[in-house]
Protein backbone atom coordinates (compact mmCIF):
# COMPACT_ATOMS: atom_id res chain seq x y z
CA UNK A 1 0.00 0.00 0.00
CA UNK A 2 2.90 2.31 0.77
CA UNK A 3 6.38 1.76 -0.56
CA UNK A 4 8.89 4.55 -0.01
CA UNK A 5 12.60 4.53 -0.68
CA UNK A 6 15.13 7.09 0.48
CA UNK A 7 12.54 9.75 1.23
CA UNK A 8 14.40 12.91 2.20
CA UNK A 9 13.31 16.43 2.88
CA UNK A 10 15.55 19.42 3.54
CA UNK A 11 14.36 22.78 4.79
CA UNK A 12 16.32 25.95 4.31
CA UNK A 13 16.11 28.20 7.35
CA UNK A 14 18.17 31.40 7.60
CA UNK A 15 20.49 30.25 4.85
CA UNK A 16 21.22 26.92 6.53
CA UNK A 17 19.96 23.63 5.15
CA UNK A 18 18.40 21.40 7.76
CA UNK A 19 17.48 17.80 6.96
CA UNK A 20 14.09 17.12 8.57
CA UNK A 21 13.81 13.63 7.10
CA UNK A 22 16.87 11.71 5.92
CA UNK A 23 16.46 8.65 3.74
CA UNK A 24 13.32 7.04 5.12
CA UNK A 25 12.28 3.63 3.69
CA UNK A 26 8.76 2.47 4.42
CA UNK A 27 6.72 -0.59 3.53
CA UNK A 28 3.11 -0.83 4.61
CA UNK A 29 0.96 -3.75 3.49
CA UNK A 30 -2.75 -3.55 2.72
CA UNK A 31 -4.89 -3.84 5.86
CA UNK A 32 -2.18 -2.87 8.32
CA UNK A 33 -2.71 -0.33 11.09
CA UNK A 34 0.69 1.27 11.44
CA UNK A 35 1.83 3.84 13.98
CA UNK A 36 4.63 6.27 13.24
CA UNK A 37 6.00 7.19 16.64
CA UNK A 38 8.55 9.78 17.61
CA UNK A 39 9.08 12.97 19.59
CA UNK A 40 8.13 16.38 18.21
CA UNK A 41 10.55 17.42 15.51
CA UNK A 42 11.59 13.85 14.69
CA UNK A 43 10.23 14.08 11.15
CA UNK A 44 6.89 12.28 11.55
CA UNK A 45 4.71 15.02 10.17
CA UNK A 46 7.18 15.94 7.42
CA UNK A 47 7.20 12.31 6.25
CA UNK A 48 3.40 12.17 6.35
CA UNK A 49 3.09 15.43 4.41
CA UNK A 50 5.41 14.04 1.73
CA UNK A 51 3.38 10.83 1.45
CA UNK A 52 0.15 12.83 1.10
CA UNK A 53 1.49 15.21 -1.63
CA UNK A 54 1.47 18.26 0.65
CA UNK A 55 5.27 18.52 0.52
CA UNK A 56 7.55 17.60 -2.36
CA UNK A 57 10.43 15.33 -1.29
CA UNK A 58 13.93 16.73 -1.77
CA UNK A 59 14.91 13.26 -2.95
CA UNK A 60 13.65 9.70 -2.84
CA UNK A 61 10.58 8.07 -4.33
CA UNK A 62 7.36 6.49 -3.19
CA UNK A 63 4.32 4.61 -4.39
CA UNK A 64 1.24 5.42 -2.38
CA UNK A 65 -1.97 3.43 -2.89
CA UNK A 66 -0.69 2.37 -6.29
CA UNK A 67 0.15 5.82 -7.65
CA UNK A 68 3.61 7.30 -8.11
CA UNK A 69 3.99 10.15 -5.66
CA UNK A 70 6.38 12.11 -7.87
CA UNK A 71 4.72 11.78 -11.27
CA UNK A 72 1.05 11.39 -10.30
CA UNK A 73 0.27 13.39 -7.15
CA UNK A 74 -3.34 13.87 -8.32
CA UNK A 75 -3.70 10.07 -8.48
CA UNK A 76 -2.40 9.79 -4.93
CA UNK A 77 -4.83 12.49 -3.74
CA UNK A 78 -7.83 10.74 -5.31
CA UNK A 79 -6.96 7.44 -3.59
CA UNK A 80 -5.96 8.43 -0.09
CA UNK A 81 -7.79 9.82 2.90
CA UNK A 82 -6.05 12.36 5.08
CA UNK A 83 -6.84 13.76 8.50
CA UNK A 84 -4.39 16.52 9.35
CA UNK A 85 -3.43 18.03 12.68
CA UNK A 86 -5.76 20.98 12.11
CA UNK A 87 -9.50 21.11 11.53
CA UNK A 88 -10.65 20.32 8.02
CA UNK A 89 -13.99 22.10 8.18
CA UNK A 90 -14.05 25.84 7.41
CA UNK A 91 -14.94 27.67 10.63
CA UNK A 92 -17.58 29.85 8.96
CA UNK A 93 -19.17 26.94 7.09
CA UNK A 94 -21.96 24.60 8.15
CA UNK A 95 -21.08 21.01 9.01
CA UNK A 96 -23.51 19.57 6.46
CA UNK A 97 -22.36 21.91 3.67
CA UNK A 98 -18.73 20.93 4.21
CA UNK A 99 -19.54 17.21 4.16
CA UNK A 100 -21.45 17.56 0.88
CA UNK A 101 -18.81 19.83 -0.67
CA UNK A 102 -15.99 17.39 0.06
CA UNK A 103 -18.01 14.54 -1.40
CA UNK A 104 -18.42 16.60 -4.55
CA UNK A 105 -14.72 17.54 -4.62
CA UNK A 106 -14.03 13.80 -4.78
CA UNK A 107 -16.31 13.53 -7.80
CA UNK A 108 -19.67 12.48 -6.31
CA UNK A 109 -22.84 13.83 -7.93
CA UNK A 110 -24.98 16.19 -5.84
CA UNK A 111 -27.54 13.52 -4.75
CA UNK A 112 -24.79 10.98 -4.02
CA UNK A 113 -22.82 13.56 -2.03
CA UNK A 114 -25.92 14.36 0.04
CA UNK A 115 -26.54 10.68 0.69
CA UNK A 116 -22.89 10.11 1.65
CA UNK A 117 -22.94 13.15 3.95
CA UNK A 118 -25.94 11.66 5.79
CA UNK A 119 -24.20 8.30 6.17
CA UNK A 120 -21.02 9.93 7.42
CA UNK A 121 -22.96 12.07 9.88
CA UNK A 122 -24.61 8.89 11.16
CA UNK A 123 -21.31 7.03 11.54
CA UNK A 124 -19.50 9.89 13.22
CA UNK A 125 -22.39 11.05 15.42
CA UNK A 126 -22.77 14.38 13.65
CA UNK A 127 -26.40 14.10 12.57
CA UNK A 128 -27.64 16.67 15.11
CA UNK A 129 -24.86 19.07 14.15
CA UNK A 130 -25.35 19.26 10.37
CA UNK A 131 -26.89 22.75 10.49
CA UNK A 132 -24.30 24.15 12.91
CA UNK A 133 -21.34 26.33 11.99
CA UNK A 134 -18.05 24.49 12.43
CA UNK A 135 -16.76 27.22 14.77
CA UNK A 136 -19.47 26.30 17.34
CA UNK A 137 -18.40 22.64 17.65
CA UNK A 138 -16.47 21.22 20.60
CA UNK A 139 -12.97 19.83 20.08
CA UNK A 140 -14.20 16.24 19.98
CA UNK A 141 -17.02 17.10 17.55
CA UNK A 142 -14.58 18.95 15.27
CA UNK A 143 -12.28 15.93 15.32
CA UNK A 144 -15.12 13.61 14.30
CA UNK A 145 -15.94 15.98 11.44
CA UNK A 146 -12.27 15.96 10.42
CA UNK A 147 -12.29 12.19 10.17
CA UNK A 148 -15.61 12.18 8.32
CA UNK A 149 -14.19 14.71 5.80
CA UNK A 150 -11.01 12.67 5.46
CA UNK A 151 -12.64 9.31 4.75
CA UNK A 152 -15.99 10.09 3.12
CA UNK A 153 -14.73 9.02 -0.31
CA UNK A 154 -13.97 5.56 1.18
CA UNK A 155 -10.23 5.56 0.54
CA UNK A 156 -8.30 2.30 0.81
CA UNK A 157 -5.49 4.10 2.64
CA UNK A 158 -6.02 6.65 5.42
CA UNK A 159 -3.37 8.92 6.93
CA UNK A 160 -3.95 10.54 10.31
CA UNK A 161 -1.55 13.12 11.72
CA UNK A 162 -1.54 13.09 15.55
CA UNK A 163 -5.27 12.45 15.62
CA UNK A 164 -5.86 12.61 19.37
CA UNK A 165 -3.78 15.66 20.29
CA UNK A 166 -5.74 17.96 22.56
CA UNK A 167 -8.73 15.68 23.12
CA UNK A 168 -10.19 14.78 26.50
CA UNK A 169 -9.92 11.05 27.48
CA UNK A 170 -13.51 10.29 26.57
CA UNK A 171 -13.24 11.84 23.09
CA UNK A 172 -9.97 9.99 22.66
CA UNK A 173 -11.55 6.60 23.37
CA UNK A 174 -14.33 7.45 20.92
CA UNK A 175 -11.74 8.47 18.31
CA UNK A 176 -9.76 5.24 18.77
CA UNK A 177 -12.94 3.27 18.20
CA UNK A 178 -13.52 5.11 14.91
CA UNK A 179 -9.91 4.57 13.82
CA UNK A 180 -10.12 0.82 14.56
CA UNK A 181 -13.38 0.72 12.64
CA UNK A 182 -11.72 2.18 9.54
CA UNK A 183 -9.63 -0.94 9.35
CA UNK A 184 -11.83 -3.59 10.94
CA UNK A 185 -15.18 -2.62 9.39
CA UNK A 186 -14.05 -0.94 6.16
CA UNK A 187 -10.82 -2.77 5.42
CA UNK A 188 -8.78 0.41 5.05
CA UNK A 189 -5.06 0.54 5.63
CA UNK A 190 -4.31 3.09 8.34
CA UNK A 191 -1.09 5.01 8.85
CA UNK A 192 -1.04 7.38 11.81
CA UNK A 193 1.56 9.47 13.56
CA UNK A 194 1.58 9.97 17.29
CA UNK A 195 3.85 10.97 20.09
CA UNK A 196 1.66 9.19 22.62
CA UNK A 197 3.05 5.83 23.66
CA UNK A 198 -0.22 4.45 24.90
CA UNK A 199 -1.96 5.41 21.68
CA UNK A 200 0.51 3.57 19.47
CA UNK A 201 0.39 0.65 21.88
CA UNK A 202 -3.41 0.48 22.05
CA UNK A 203 -4.14 0.96 18.35
CA UNK A 204 -1.37 -0.28 16.13
CA UNK A 205 -0.35 -3.68 14.75
CA UNK A 206 3.04 -2.33 13.93
CA UNK A 207 5.04 0.64 15.12
CA UNK A 208 7.76 2.46 13.25
CA UNK A 209 9.92 4.62 15.48
CA UNK A 210 11.52 7.71 14.00
CA UNK A 211 14.07 9.95 15.64
CA UNK A 212 16.06 12.83 14.21
CA UNK A 213 14.79 12.23 10.68
CA UNK A 214 15.58 8.51 10.46
CA UNK A 215 13.83 5.26 11.35
CA UNK A 216 15.42 3.68 14.42
CA UNK A 217 13.25 0.60 14.93
CA UNK A 218 10.09 -1.12 13.85
CA UNK A 219 7.95 -4.06 14.86
CA UNK A 220 4.75 -4.94 16.69
CA UNK A 221 4.39 -3.23 20.06
CA UNK A 222 5.12 -6.55 21.80
CA UNK A 223 8.15 -7.31 19.62
CA UNK A 224 9.64 -3.89 20.22
CA UNK A 225 9.18 -4.16 23.94
CA UNK A 226 10.58 -7.68 24.13
CA UNK A 227 13.51 -6.87 21.94
CA UNK A 228 14.67 -3.75 23.60
CA UNK A 229 13.86 -3.79 27.25
CA UNK A 230 12.31 -6.98 28.62
CA UNK A 231 9.74 -7.19 31.40
CA UNK A 232 10.36 -5.77 34.81
CA UNK A 233 9.80 -8.46 37.49
CA UNK A 234 9.23 -7.49 41.12
CA UNK A 235 9.20 -10.07 43.91
CA UNK A 236 8.45 -9.43 47.56
CA UNK A 237 10.52 -12.05 49.38
CA UNK A 238 11.67 -13.07 52.87
CA UNK A 239 15.31 -13.47 51.84
CA UNK A 240 16.37 -11.12 49.06
CA UNK A 241 20.01 -12.33 49.01
CA UNK A 242 19.16 -15.93 48.23
CA UNK A 243 16.36 -14.84 45.92
CA UNK A 244 18.62 -12.61 43.85
CA UNK A 245 21.10 -15.41 43.43
CA UNK A 246 18.38 -17.64 42.02
CA UNK A 247 16.98 -14.87 39.84
CA UNK A 248 20.45 -14.12 38.48
CA UNK A 249 20.68 -17.70 37.28
CA UNK A 250 17.61 -17.21 35.06
CA UNK A 251 18.75 -16.96 31.46
CA UNK A 252 18.54 -13.39 30.15
CA UNK A 253 18.01 -11.72 33.54
CA UNK A 254 19.57 -8.25 33.80
CA UNK A 255 19.41 -5.16 35.99
CA UNK A 256 19.17 -7.23 39.20
CA UNK A 257 18.50 -5.16 42.28
CA UNK A 258 17.46 -5.79 45.88
CA UNK A 259 16.01 -3.90 48.84
CA UNK A 260 15.34 -5.18 52.36
CA UNK A 261 12.41 -7.28 51.20
CA UNK A 262 12.24 -7.12 47.38
CA UNK A 263 14.11 -8.31 44.34
CA UNK A 264 13.71 -6.67 40.92
CA UNK A 265 15.17 -7.64 37.59
CA UNK A 266 14.45 -7.41 33.89
CA UNK A 267 14.02 -10.47 31.72
CA UNK A 268 12.51 -11.12 28.29
CA UNK A 269 9.08 -12.76 28.62
CA UNK A 270 8.80 -12.46 32.40
CA UNK A 271 5.41 -14.15 32.27
CA UNK A 272 6.95 -17.45 31.09
CA UNK A 273 10.01 -17.24 33.36
CA UNK A 274 8.16 -16.61 36.60
CA UNK A 275 6.49 -20.02 37.25
CA UNK A 276 9.84 -21.83 37.12
CA UNK A 277 11.54 -19.24 39.30
CA UNK A 278 8.73 -19.42 41.87
CA UNK A 279 9.12 -23.19 42.12
CA UNK A 280 12.85 -22.83 42.70
CA UNK A 281 12.34 -20.17 45.38
CA UNK A 282 9.88 -22.53 47.04
CA UNK A 283 12.37 -25.35 46.93
CA UNK A 284 15.03 -23.06 48.45
CA UNK A 285 12.49 -22.18 51.17
CA UNK A 286 12.39 -18.48 50.29
CA UNK A 287 8.93 -17.17 51.12
CA UNK A 288 7.36 -15.15 48.30
CA UNK A 289 4.85 -12.52 49.50
CA UNK A 290 4.12 -10.63 46.28
CA UNK A 291 4.72 -11.03 42.57
CA UNK A 292 4.42 -8.41 39.86
CA UNK A 293 5.59 -8.16 36.28
CA UNK A 294 5.50 -4.94 34.32
CA UNK A 295 5.46 -5.02 30.55
CA UNK A 296 7.94 -2.45 29.27
CA UNK A 297 6.36 0.74 27.99
CA UNK A 298 7.22 2.25 24.65
CA UNK A 299 9.01 4.90 26.67
CA UNK A 300 11.46 2.18 27.81
CA UNK A 301 11.82 1.17 24.17
CA UNK A 302 12.55 4.69 23.07
CA UNK A 303 15.02 5.18 25.90
CA UNK A 304 16.84 1.97 24.96
CA UNK A 305 17.04 3.02 21.29
CA UNK A 306 17.97 6.65 21.55
CA UNK A 307 19.32 7.08 25.07
CA UNK A 308 16.61 9.68 25.67
CA UNK A 309 13.20 9.36 27.19
CA UNK A 310 10.38 10.13 24.81
CA UNK A 311 9.05 12.59 27.34
CA UNK A 312 12.25 14.61 27.58
CA UNK A 313 12.72 14.45 23.81
CA UNK A 314 9.26 15.91 23.34
Amino acid sequence: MIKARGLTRDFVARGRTVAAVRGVDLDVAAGELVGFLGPNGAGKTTTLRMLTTLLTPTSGEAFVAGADLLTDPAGVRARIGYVGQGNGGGLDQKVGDELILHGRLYGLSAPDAKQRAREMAETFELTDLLGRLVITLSGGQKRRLDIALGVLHRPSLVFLDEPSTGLDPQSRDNLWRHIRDLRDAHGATVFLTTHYLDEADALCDRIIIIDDGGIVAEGSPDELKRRVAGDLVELGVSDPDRAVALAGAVSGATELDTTADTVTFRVPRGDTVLPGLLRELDRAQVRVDAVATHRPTLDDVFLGLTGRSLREAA
Partner: protein
Amino acid sequence: MSTRFWRETWLVFVRSIRPTLRNPQSVLIGMSMSLLYLVLFGPLLRSFGTGDSSWEWFVPGMMAQTALFGTAYAGFALIPEIRSGALERMRVSPVSRSALLLGRVAGDVLRLVIQAVLLALLAMVFGFRVGIGPLLLGLALLAVLGVAIGAASYALALKLRQEYAFAPVLSMSVMPLMLLSGVLLPMTIAPAWLYDISRANPLSYVVDAERAMVAGQWSAPSIWLGPLLGILLALLATGWGVRTFRREAA
Protein backbone atom coordinates in the same frame (compact mmCIF):
# COMPACT_ATOMS: atom_id res chain seq x y z
CA MET B 1 -10.33 24.28 -19.58
CA SER B 2 -12.18 21.06 -18.94
CA THR B 3 -15.69 20.70 -17.55
CA ARG B 4 -14.03 19.27 -14.45
CA PHE B 5 -12.22 22.55 -13.89
CA TRP B 6 -15.43 24.59 -14.24
CA ARG B 7 -17.33 22.22 -11.96
CA GLU B 8 -14.65 22.45 -9.26
CA THR B 9 -14.39 26.23 -9.62
CA TRP B 10 -18.16 26.44 -9.20
CA LEU B 11 -18.03 24.29 -6.03
CA VAL B 12 -15.28 26.43 -4.51
CA PHE B 13 -17.17 29.59 -5.56
CA VAL B 14 -20.39 28.45 -3.86
CA ARG B 15 -18.47 27.60 -0.71
CA SER B 16 -16.76 31.00 -0.71
CA ILE B 17 -20.01 33.00 -0.93
CA ARG B 18 -21.92 30.99 1.70
CA PRO B 19 -20.78 33.17 4.62
CA THR B 20 -21.86 36.27 2.62
CA LEU B 21 -25.27 34.76 1.87
CA ARG B 22 -25.79 34.15 5.60
CA ASN B 23 -24.61 37.68 6.34
CA PRO B 24 -25.62 39.91 3.41
CA GLN B 25 -24.99 43.13 5.32
CA SER B 26 -21.25 42.36 5.11
CA VAL B 27 -21.47 43.52 1.48
CA LEU B 28 -22.51 46.98 2.67
CA ILE B 29 -19.91 47.06 5.44
CA GLY B 30 -17.25 46.21 2.85
CA MET B 31 -18.15 49.27 0.79
CA SER B 32 -18.63 51.69 3.68
CA MET B 33 -15.47 53.65 2.83
CA SER B 34 -16.60 54.36 -0.74
CA LEU B 35 -20.08 55.24 0.55
CA LEU B 36 -18.58 57.78 2.93
CA TYR B 37 -16.50 59.31 0.14
CA LEU B 38 -19.55 59.45 -2.09
CA VAL B 39 -21.77 61.18 0.45
CA LEU B 40 -19.28 63.29 2.43
CA PHE B 41 -16.63 64.11 -0.18
CA GLY B 42 -18.38 63.90 -3.56
CA PRO B 43 -20.55 67.01 -3.04
CA LEU B 44 -17.38 69.08 -2.39
CA LEU B 45 -16.20 68.38 -5.91
CA ARG B 46 -19.11 70.30 -7.36
CA SER B 47 -17.90 73.41 -5.51
CA PHE B 48 -14.65 73.16 -7.46
CA GLY B 49 -16.65 74.11 -10.50
CA THR B 50 -15.76 71.04 -12.53
CA GLY B 51 -19.20 71.38 -14.03
CA ASP B 52 -22.39 69.35 -14.08
CA SER B 53 -20.50 66.26 -15.14
CA SER B 54 -18.65 66.02 -11.81
CA TRP B 55 -20.66 63.00 -10.66
CA GLU B 56 -19.91 61.24 -13.93
CA TRP B 57 -16.25 61.93 -13.25
CA PHE B 58 -16.27 61.01 -9.55
CA VAL B 59 -18.53 57.93 -9.35
CA PRO B 60 -16.53 55.70 -11.77
CA GLY B 61 -13.46 56.44 -9.62
CA MET B 62 -15.37 55.45 -6.49
CA MET B 63 -16.48 52.23 -8.18
CA ALA B 64 -12.85 51.45 -9.01
CA GLN B 65 -11.87 52.23 -5.43
CA THR B 66 -14.55 49.83 -4.18
CA ALA B 67 -13.13 47.17 -6.48
CA LEU B 68 -9.62 47.86 -5.16
CA PHE B 69 -10.51 47.74 -1.48
CA GLY B 70 -13.05 44.94 -1.82
CA THR B 71 -10.61 42.52 -3.40
CA ALA B 72 -7.25 43.64 -1.97
CA TYR B 73 -8.36 42.48 1.46
CA ALA B 74 -9.76 39.17 0.17
CA GLY B 75 -6.66 37.33 1.39
CA PHE B 76 -7.70 38.02 4.98
CA ALA B 77 -10.44 35.40 4.61
CA LEU B 78 -7.85 32.81 3.60
CA ILE B 79 -5.55 33.21 6.61
CA PRO B 80 -7.91 31.57 9.16
CA GLU B 81 -8.36 28.69 6.70
CA ILE B 82 -4.59 28.31 6.38
CA ARG B 83 -4.24 28.29 10.15
CA SER B 84 -7.15 25.98 10.93
CA GLY B 85 -6.31 23.31 8.36
CA ALA B 86 -9.38 23.83 6.15
CA LEU B 87 -7.25 24.89 3.18
CA GLU B 88 -4.93 21.91 3.69
CA ARG B 89 -7.98 19.60 3.68
CA MET B 90 -8.97 21.00 0.28
CA ARG B 91 -5.40 20.87 -1.05
CA VAL B 92 -5.13 17.17 -0.23
CA SER B 93 -8.29 16.46 -2.26
CA PRO B 94 -7.94 15.92 -6.01
CA VAL B 95 -9.46 19.35 -6.83
CA SER B 96 -7.40 21.40 -9.30
CA ARG B 97 -5.22 24.09 -7.77
CA SER B 98 -6.50 26.74 -10.17
CA ALA B 99 -10.10 25.99 -9.11
CA LEU B 100 -9.10 26.47 -5.47
CA LEU B 101 -7.94 29.99 -6.33
CA LEU B 102 -10.37 31.04 -9.04
CA GLY B 103 -13.49 29.83 -7.20
CA ARG B 104 -12.61 32.17 -4.36
CA VAL B 105 -11.73 35.02 -6.69
CA ALA B 106 -15.08 34.57 -8.46
CA GLY B 107 -16.84 34.98 -5.10
CA ASP B 108 -14.98 38.25 -4.48
CA VAL B 109 -15.76 39.50 -7.99
CA LEU B 110 -19.46 38.82 -7.43
CA ARG B 111 -19.36 40.81 -4.19
CA LEU B 112 -17.55 43.70 -5.85
CA VAL B 113 -19.99 43.85 -8.77
CA ILE B 114 -22.91 44.00 -6.32
CA GLN B 115 -21.13 46.77 -4.40
CA ALA B 116 -20.41 48.76 -7.55
CA VAL B 117 -24.05 48.50 -8.65
CA LEU B 118 -25.28 49.63 -5.22
CA LEU B 119 -22.85 52.53 -5.32
CA ALA B 120 -24.04 53.60 -8.78
CA LEU B 121 -27.69 53.36 -7.71
CA LEU B 122 -27.07 55.47 -4.63
CA ALA B 123 -25.12 58.02 -6.70
CA MET B 124 -28.13 58.36 -8.98
CA VAL B 125 -29.98 59.84 -6.01
CA PHE B 126 -27.38 62.64 -6.09
CA GLY B 127 -27.74 63.12 -9.83
CA PHE B 128 -25.30 60.61 -11.35
CA ARG B 129 -26.45 59.49 -14.81
CA VAL B 130 -25.22 56.48 -16.78
CA GLY B 131 -26.64 54.34 -19.60
CA ILE B 132 -27.09 50.61 -19.07
CA GLY B 133 -24.57 49.68 -21.80
CA PRO B 134 -21.73 51.83 -20.47
CA LEU B 135 -22.51 50.66 -16.92
CA LEU B 136 -22.25 46.99 -17.92
CA LEU B 137 -18.96 47.63 -19.72
CA GLY B 138 -17.69 49.51 -16.70
CA LEU B 139 -18.67 46.61 -14.41
CA ALA B 140 -16.89 44.14 -16.70
CA LEU B 141 -13.72 46.21 -16.43
CA LEU B 142 -14.07 46.29 -12.64
CA ALA B 143 -14.47 42.49 -12.63
CA VAL B 144 -11.19 42.14 -14.56
CA LEU B 145 -9.52 44.48 -12.08
CA GLY B 146 -11.02 42.44 -9.23
CA VAL B 147 -9.56 39.20 -10.62
CA ALA B 148 -6.11 40.81 -10.79
CA ILE B 149 -6.15 42.26 -7.29
CA GLY B 150 -8.00 39.35 -5.67
CA ALA B 151 -5.63 36.72 -7.08
CA ALA B 152 -2.63 38.78 -5.97
CA SER B 153 -4.14 39.19 -2.50
CA TYR B 154 -4.57 35.41 -2.07
CA ALA B 155 -1.05 34.74 -3.33
CA LEU B 156 0.31 37.27 -0.85
CA ALA B 157 -1.77 35.84 2.02
CA LEU B 158 -0.43 32.35 1.23
CA LYS B 159 3.12 33.66 1.28
CA LEU B 160 2.82 35.68 4.47
CA ARG B 161 0.37 33.40 6.34
CA GLN B 162 -0.20 35.74 9.32
CA GLU B 163 -2.46 38.76 9.68
CA TYR B 164 0.27 40.83 11.32
CA ALA B 165 2.51 40.31 8.32
CA PHE B 166 -0.24 40.64 5.71
CA ALA B 167 -1.91 43.83 6.99
CA PRO B 168 1.07 46.24 6.76
CA VAL B 169 2.12 44.99 3.33
CA LEU B 170 -1.45 45.48 2.18
CA SER B 171 -1.92 49.01 3.45
CA MET B 172 1.51 50.02 2.18
CA SER B 173 0.52 48.94 -1.31
CA VAL B 174 -3.22 49.73 -1.41
CA MET B 175 -3.02 53.31 -0.15
CA PRO B 176 -0.39 54.51 -2.70
CA LEU B 177 -2.22 52.67 -5.47
CA MET B 178 -5.42 54.47 -4.52
CA LEU B 179 -3.90 57.93 -4.02
CA LEU B 180 -1.90 57.71 -7.25
CA SER B 181 -4.83 56.56 -9.36
CA GLY B 182 -6.63 59.92 -9.26
CA VAL B 183 -9.91 58.60 -7.87
CA LEU B 184 -10.38 61.58 -5.54
CA LEU B 185 -9.09 64.52 -7.60
CA PRO B 186 -7.89 64.70 -11.21
CA MET B 187 -4.15 64.01 -11.45
CA THR B 188 -3.97 66.73 -14.11
CA ILE B 189 -3.92 69.32 -11.32
CA ALA B 190 -0.95 67.55 -9.69
CA PRO B 191 2.63 68.92 -9.88
CA ALA B 192 4.60 67.34 -12.72
CA TRP B 193 6.55 64.88 -10.53
CA LEU B 194 3.38 63.55 -8.90
CA TYR B 195 1.64 63.28 -12.25
CA ASP B 196 4.59 61.30 -13.64
CA ILE B 197 4.47 58.86 -10.72
CA SER B 198 0.73 58.41 -11.18
CA ARG B 199 1.33 57.45 -14.81
CA ALA B 200 3.44 54.53 -13.59
CA ASN B 201 0.46 53.24 -11.64
CA PRO B 202 -1.48 50.75 -13.76
CA LEU B 203 -4.61 51.43 -11.71
CA SER B 204 -4.80 55.02 -12.99
CA TYR B 205 -5.26 53.72 -16.56
CA VAL B 206 -8.06 51.44 -15.39
CA VAL B 207 -9.71 54.39 -13.61
CA ASP B 208 -9.34 56.53 -16.77
CA ALA B 209 -10.94 53.76 -18.84
CA GLU B 210 -13.76 53.37 -16.33
CA ARG B 211 -14.49 57.11 -16.62
CA ALA B 212 -14.31 57.08 -20.40
CA MET B 213 -16.76 54.15 -20.51
CA VAL B 214 -19.28 55.75 -18.16
CA ALA B 215 -19.03 59.07 -20.07
CA GLY B 216 -19.32 57.28 -23.43
CA GLN B 217 -16.04 58.73 -24.77
CA TRP B 218 -15.47 55.83 -27.11
CA SER B 219 -12.63 57.52 -29.01
CA ALA B 220 -10.47 58.12 -25.94
CA PRO B 221 -7.27 55.98 -26.02
CA SER B 222 -7.83 54.94 -22.39
CA ILE B 223 -10.91 52.94 -23.52
CA TRP B 224 -8.47 50.36 -24.89
CA LEU B 225 -5.44 50.94 -22.73
CA GLY B 226 -7.27 50.39 -19.41
CA PRO B 227 -8.92 47.06 -20.28
CA LEU B 228 -5.76 45.71 -21.96
CA LEU B 229 -3.68 46.59 -18.94
CA GLY B 230 -6.37 45.11 -16.66
CA ILE B 231 -6.43 41.81 -18.57
CA LEU B 232 -2.64 41.64 -18.55
CA LEU B 233 -2.55 42.22 -14.79
CA ALA B 234 -5.33 39.65 -14.25
CA LEU B 235 -3.38 37.03 -16.21
CA LEU B 236 -0.14 37.75 -14.37
CA ALA B 237 -1.78 37.73 -10.94
CA THR B 238 -3.72 34.54 -11.68
CA GLY B 239 -0.52 32.85 -12.83
CA TRP B 240 1.22 33.93 -9.65
CA GLY B 241 -1.74 32.84 -7.52
CA VAL B 242 -2.07 29.40 -9.10
CA ARG B 243 1.65 28.81 -8.74
CA THR B 244 1.46 29.74 -5.07
CA PHE B 245 -1.53 27.44 -4.50
CA ARG B 246 0.34 24.62 -6.22
CA ARG B 247 3.52 25.21 -4.29
CA GLU B 248 4.03 22.81 -1.46
CA ALA B 249 4.60 24.88 1.65
CA ALA B 250 1.43 26.86 1.04
